[in-house]
């Protein structure tokens, strides 16, 4: 199976091509340059593999949470490519992808992933790796004030992501000595998204191009006027 994954949800921009589980990735931390880089990254991955876009079997993307514009860029690019060839798409949580990156890097199996969501909030998700190697969400993903972050009462956890860089002092107090390490500059990667997408695809987690839309978590983005004028 040939799966093409991409992520533009945070400061990092990446694309990865998995051919029967063997993954090659282009990755660059380049804020505000994602729209200039992403298609070039994809094209070069395909060229190196001697493939055309029509050879791709499945697409995957970081569906959020993250920068609103960033997750839409990934969704839009995936929609364009998947629509062109009528191929399925696997939306993958960017928080899960971060947890996967952190686990890969450290060998830890329990990760609290947090992305700085601005407006004094973080996007939050707790993940554990099960015996089969699957990364499983504990509870729900949410957008929350650092003071209210649902830090688990038990277990040892690795903390990962820009949320911890911005609000580590507040959020880590509930964790105390159960914090086994910190990766504050951890970003999602297309490689991690590809890994997660392969198993999700096998479990029927694919959607159509039309259904490949972002998950923002923050949905209260405008206030309604109290009265006319």
């Amino acid at each position: 199976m040939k799966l093409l994954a991409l992520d533009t949800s945070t400061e990092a921009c990446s694309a990865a091509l998995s051919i029967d589980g063997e993954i090659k990735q282009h990755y660059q931390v380049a804020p505000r340059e994602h729209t200039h880089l992403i298609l070039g990254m994809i094209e070069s991955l395909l060229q190196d593999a001697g493939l055309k876009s029509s050879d791709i079997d499945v697409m995957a993307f970081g569906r959020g949470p993250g920068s609103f514009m960033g997750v839409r860029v990934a969704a839009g690019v995936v929609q364009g490519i998947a629509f062109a060839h009528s191929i399925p798409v696997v939306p993958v949580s960017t928080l899960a992808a971060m947890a996967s990156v952190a686990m890969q890097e450290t060998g830890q199996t329990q990760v609290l992933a947090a992305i700085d969501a601005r407006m004094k909030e973080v996007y939050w998700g707790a993940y554990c790796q099960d015996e089969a190697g699957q990364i499983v969400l504990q509870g729900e993903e949410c957008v929350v004030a650092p003071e209210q972050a649902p830090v688990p009462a038990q277990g040892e956890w690795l903390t990962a992501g820009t949320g911890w860089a911005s609000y580590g002092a507040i959020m880590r107090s509930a964790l105390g000595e159960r914090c086994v390490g910190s990766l504050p500059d951890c970003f999602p990667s297309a490689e991690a998204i590809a890994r997660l997408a392969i198993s999700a695809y096998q479990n029927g987690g694919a959607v159509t191009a039309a259904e490949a839309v972002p998950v923002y978590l923050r949905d209260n983005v405008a206030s309604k006027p109290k009265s006319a004028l």
Partner: protein
Amino acid sequence: MIVLGIESSCDETGIALYDSEKGLLSHVLHSQIELHAEYGGVVPELASRDHIRHLVPLMEQTLQQAGLTQKDIQGVAYTAGPGLIGALMSGACVGRSLAWALGVPAQEVHHMEGHLLAPMLEENPPEFPFVALLVSGGHTLLAHVTGVGQYEILGQSLDDAAGEAFDKTAKMLGLGYPGGPILAKLAVKGVAGVYRFPRPMTDRPGLDFSFSGLKTFALNTWQKLQVECEGQTEKLEQGQADVARAFEEAVVDTLSLKCRRALKQVHCKRLVIAGGVGANQHLRQQLKAMVKKEGGELYYPRIEFCTDNGAMIAYVGCLRLMAGESKALSIDARARWPIDELPSIRD
């Protein structure tokens, strides 16, 4: 050449297929008016979110209507500016990537060039050169159009766009959202001559516009009227219609006078009106009469192509792609993009 056009610069998602040989093949539009109504104006983030949900389903519908598939698309054009950056970016990401995946060229289209050339989609299109009045919620512009990409700006609004003044005045009168068309409907019930509003910037030479003072004049008149008519609902309702009438007349008179001036200045007989306010019946009638008196001819697109649409984008994209232009493998969108920076193309 068959070109798919994508428009997503503000609160409408428009998709169309244009064939250089057969003309317009199909077009569909999704309007977000209801989405923004409860906020009393377009919320940019909500607009972007809505575009990314609707682009693919609308593309499917457009292809189906034309009896074509993705593989029949020979070029993809999308609005790259000016407009709301997030909204534009949604369409640009989908459009540029679609073109890349299909292995066909992509073309960025200037939203206002789309409007200016929209009358070319009609059966009796104007020949170059012509004077174009572009009036919408975002723009009020007079241009001398001598060819595709040859736009000399003769005048523009120094403050509110004409459509914006319509919408804001409607809001002050408590008419709902979007207020412009509601105000125009109410104006029909108003009695001409009850109020006389100023015709801004007509007492001096030049082709620029200013509509924000007119809006304030309407507000003052309306507030005074509300005090005078306290407890007299019927009288107040008629007064509201009279204010709407006076406001619309002032805007229409001003636009008409500047159009006549523009035609004389560049020695031109053909006038084109485009943009959402171009759908205003009173404006169309008055411009038609003015142009006839001057011995010229008036051109305008069908009502559905006055407002934002994918057809005008597919059309302009097709013209420019056929002229050999195309967009590199990068995705861009511009909130601001002066129309006189566009390259001209030769037939």
